[in-house]
């Protein structure tokens, strides 16, 4: 079972990565050029039909894969790094500091990502993929930090940590060799969940003009622009929707499978 989910995840994510890399060197059509009639249904020439302006839709979905992975990886890396660091520090902090940090995190979690994104855009040169990643990454880090803090506290309460202290290990080594490996499986899965949410969050930011500017449209933007023509050309919603679902599902399967593989308590002896 766990092998199956690992394989399904690896295949789904693998296809996405392959397509994303492919778009860097080759595209079936010029994404900005009119390639056929408007709102054509799927055909051999246009696998996902054409959009309102007659551009090949499949090409746009392919580019969307690259945007989705960039946002997901960028936000997950940023959020994971900040979140894990803050979470571990807060687990070690004195009571007062820990409480203050916990309260800050709670405020940050309650703070809408959208508002955060607007602040980030206002503070930088304007909306770009980078600002979207930054905003989503910061929002993600607050959620991860809270999880990491609780997980770390739980590990720190174990006797093997006390034993490690009595073995002469400093706190830095204890975090590296005992805490991080033991919290990794759960944090990994949480990051995967956030990865999916990040791709979706980017879609809503794009809709408001806070995401990547065209022509590099994300799946979220495709979904939004296909909204008005959903009854005439349902493929406009189905294609990016399926792609988004496949990627998010694939990441979750992959994380699940990896967690079981990494966990000696559950894995094979």
């Amino acid at each position, binding site marked *: 079972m766990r092998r199956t989910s690992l394989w399904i995840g690896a295949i789904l994510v693998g296809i996405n990565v392959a397509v994303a890399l492919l778009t860097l060197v080759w595209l079936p059509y010029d994404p900005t050029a009119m390639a056929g009639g408007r709102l054509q249904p799927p055909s051999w020439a246009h696998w996902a039909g054409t959009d309102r302006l007659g551009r090949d839709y499949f090409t746009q979905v392919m580019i969307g894969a690259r945007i989705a992975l960039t946002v997901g990886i960028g936000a997950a890396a940023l959020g994971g790094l900040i979140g894990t660091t803050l979470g571990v520090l807060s687990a070690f902090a004195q009571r007062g500091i820990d409480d203050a940090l916990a309260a800050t995190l709670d405020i940050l979690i309650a703070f809408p990502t959208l508002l955060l994104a607007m602040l980030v855009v206002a503070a930088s040169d304007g909306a770009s993929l980078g600002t979207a990643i930054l905003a989503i990454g910061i929002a993600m880090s607050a959620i991860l930090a809270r999880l990491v803090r609780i997980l770390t506290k739980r590990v720190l309460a174990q*006797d093997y940590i*006390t*034993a490690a*202290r*009595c*073995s*002469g290990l400093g706190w830095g080594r204890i975090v590296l*060799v005992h805490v991080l490996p*033991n919290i990794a499986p759960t944090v990994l899965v949480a990051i995967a969940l956030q990865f999916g949410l990040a791709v979706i969050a980017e879609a809503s930011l794009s809709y408001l003009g806070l995401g990547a500017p065209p022509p590099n449209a994300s799946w979220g933007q495709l979904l939004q622009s296909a909204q008005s023509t959903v009854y005439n050309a349902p493929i406009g919603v189905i294609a990016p929707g399926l792609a988004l679902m496949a990627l998010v599902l694939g990441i979750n399967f992959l994380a699940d499978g990896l967690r079981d593989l990494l966990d000696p308590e559950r894995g094979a*002896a």
Partner: protein
Amino acid sequence: MSLISLRDVQFGYGGQPILHDVSLALEQGESLGILGESGSGKSTILRLMLGLARPDQGVVEADGSVLDIRSRPRMQAHRRFVQPVFQDPYTSLDPRMKVRRILTEPHVALDLPGDAGAEAARVLDAVGLPADSLDRYPRAFSGGQRQRIAIARALIARPRVLLADEPVSALDLATKVRVIELLTELARDITLVLVSHDIAIVAALCPRMIVLQQGRIVEGGATRHILRAPQHPYTQRLLASLQHMPEETP
């Protein structure tokens, strides 16, 4: 000279006093049992002896000098002098480390002499586990075997003192008896401080004992004297509370 001693130690946590005026001394070769119920402060005494906490008042002395837990060289020396064994064999081993790494970790961190791998094999043999245990994870072992691994880890530093916090109370009866036998054997070379709520374990392992009630030592001395003629009402009550096997009828 005592191996470890506490002098007029007071300790509290979050405004709650836990230990009041505790003084005791551990002499070479005279394993000491600390008997007390939950909340008596017995585990706190171990934490102070291990240098994991500092007394609010009074001093902890070990190996002839005051234990200053802020001094790194002093603590490194102390780690080689005393080693702990904990109650719960399921939380005292890192589930993500193979036994080899668990055993060599203190060897490396404490910069001990000799080859880490050879030392790991030595302590594993000392606790009666086969050499092929080194390449397994803790989950492959039963509670009693895990406790042996935890004892092996403590032995790697060749400590003079072994501090054991309820080392057998989480174990099944037959396993318990075998681990007590192991500790008895080890106590020939290493002086044991044993914290327990179980008089039988203290009686089996420690020639000297103290009785702790709500952070105070109410009675202390030779175990055989205390068991034969307990002076303090609390000790009397503890002994009267023991349940017995039915007498063997001829």
